[in-house]
């Protein structure tokens, strides 16, 4: 009893540590399930905690975003007109580029169909706002204001318009936890855009993103774009992940290299996200319509560019190339092409040979030979002359 009394503080500490160590062991030993990353009891504890914290997070977010909205929408309006003008110009440029790119996309899809590839397109999304973060350097997670009531489930991909953010880890009724791609426990199948090398992307304990399962390859250079490969069954194929930032030997995992990737999304400043709730084998009708419009526009542009002489400049619509796509009417008069003006005339040039009525059979040609061509013993008839 004296022993217990003397060392009661230390024994109490040991008991507390032991209990927590056992709890940790239970959590770690439990087989990981993608749909249920935590056991039922742990999940219940997290649910209670999140339920208690979420109202505070929502209120804080509402106050913060309200103040930010008031500032940005009503007070800080400097340079807005100039920005608007620049954005409109950028939009016009992007429309032209989109028309050019759509043709490549169509060709790519045709090739994929020929090879039997199965592409998955983003079918449906749910927009959500970020209301909290993990607040720790060891974990990189976000809390969003949508949950299972909105149709979200664990392992759904989370993106922004710039690229991949992460995937859903814990989904509660009204909120969800997003595991960012720079979390140490995160992983994604990726594809290097130009070299077409497949790899696995992982987060690090320092909050960076890197590829660590590739050996040294001189083809991989900084600046190469990294896309999702679709092989992990979480992220649809082709979403931007980031850009290769640096390549170095990995001292912990020889002979592999540590390819550091700069994420396409600023993961520390994510405000709104899209959760991909469904994928489909074909693009959405709206996307298909956009592609068809862009392809038609591109075809018209190509025709206008490649056949400039066939159009009558006075024909309405010729300027924008629409006439090129219109077939000629059946009873339209045949168009006779006119030869281009001669740059260097010679004796074969139209108009340089005297008419046949002035020629004498057996006589030498009186026409001077230009360009040093040998004189013909016999006069040549005028091209196109009828007898």
């Amino acid at each position, binding site marked *: 009893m004296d022993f217990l009394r003397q060392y*009661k*503080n*230390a024994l*109490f*500490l040991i008991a*507390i*540590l032991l209990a*927590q*160590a056992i*709890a*940790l*062991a239970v*959590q*770690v030993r439990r087989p990981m399930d993608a749909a249920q990353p935590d056991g039922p009891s*742990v999940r219940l*504890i*997290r649910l209670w*905690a*999140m339920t208690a*914290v979420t109202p*505070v*997070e929502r209120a*804080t*977010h509402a106050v*913060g975003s309200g103040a930010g909205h008031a500032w940005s929408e009503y007070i800080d309006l400097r340079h807005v007109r100039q920005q608007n003008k620049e954005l409109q110009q950028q939009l016009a440029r992007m429309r032209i580029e989109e028309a050019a790119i759509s043709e490549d996309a169509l060709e790519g899809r045709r090739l994929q169909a020929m090879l039997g590839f199965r592409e998955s397109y983003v079918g449906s999304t749910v927009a959500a706002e*970020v209301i*909290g*973060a*993990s*607040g*720790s*350097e*060891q*974990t990189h*997670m976000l809390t969003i204001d949508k949950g299972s009531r909105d149709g979200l489930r664990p392992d759904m991909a989370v993106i922004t318009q710039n690229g991949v953010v992460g995937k859903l*880890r*814990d989904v509660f009724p009204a909120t969800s*936890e997003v*595991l960012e791609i720079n979390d*140490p426990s995160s992983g994604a199948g990726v594809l290097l855009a130009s070299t077409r090398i497949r790899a696995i992307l992982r987060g*690090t*304990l*320092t909050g960076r993103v890197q590829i660590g399962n590739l050996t040294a390859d001189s083809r991989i250079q900084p600046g190469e774009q990294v896309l999702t490969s679709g092989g992990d069954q979480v992220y649809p194929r082709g979403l931007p992940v980031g850009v290769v930032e640096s390549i170095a030997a990995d001292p*912990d995992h020889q002979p592999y290299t540590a390819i550091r990737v700069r994420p396409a999304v600023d993961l*520390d*400043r994510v405000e709104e996200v899209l959760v991909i709730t469904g994928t489909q084998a074909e693009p959405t009708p709206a996307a298909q319509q956009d592609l068809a419009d862009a392809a038609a526009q591109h075809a018209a542009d190509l025709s206008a560019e490649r056949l400039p002489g066939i159009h009558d400049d006075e024909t309405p619509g010729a300027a924008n190339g629409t006439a090129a796509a219109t077939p000629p009417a059946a009873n339209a008069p045949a168009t006779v092409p006119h030869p281009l003006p001669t740059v260097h005339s010679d004796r074969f040039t139209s108009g340089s040979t005297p008419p046949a009525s002035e020629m004498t059979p057996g006589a030498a040609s009186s026409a001077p030979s230009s360009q040093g061509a040998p004189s013909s013993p016999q006069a040549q008839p005028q091209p196109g002359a009828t007898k």
Partner: protein
Amino acid sequence: MMVTRSYMSRREVEQQSFSIPVTVLVPLGAVLLQVLLPRVFHGLAVLDLPFIVTLFFAISRRSPIAGTVTGAAIGLLQDVLTGQPIGVNGMAKSVIGYAGASLGSRIDVENTKTRALLAFGFSLLQSVLLYLIERRLLGIRAFHLMWLHELLRAAANTAVALPVFLLLDRAKHQE
């Protein structure tokens, strides 16, 4: 005639307590702020407000058992909200609470310099504990201790701890 002197330990003389609202709301507020502040500025994730509160309650109460319980509770709540396996911060902060209370009963923890040293030293101790838990217990081989970063974290925690300690001193009940 010999004068009888009764011995009272420093702990018995200066044990301090806090009201229930302070005991509950301050740790809760610290954990909540820890979750919310990095949303505003990501660099604030380097701070560990729950650690600061754990240390303050431990050295103020000077009871190892109370310090252990406070540290375990705050750490477990932090684990729940940060998505880590439950017990990582719980174990680390249990030790911090115990050690802080044990040390608090032996030295003068009202002095600013002592407080700064305590905050700096215990922050480093927590980093080492977290390293051991992650690396040895959880088997995360990739977990490395980056000393420069941990020194910066300790400095940042110390800089924030001193004004927070002064603020929380006002909530003490002398016994």
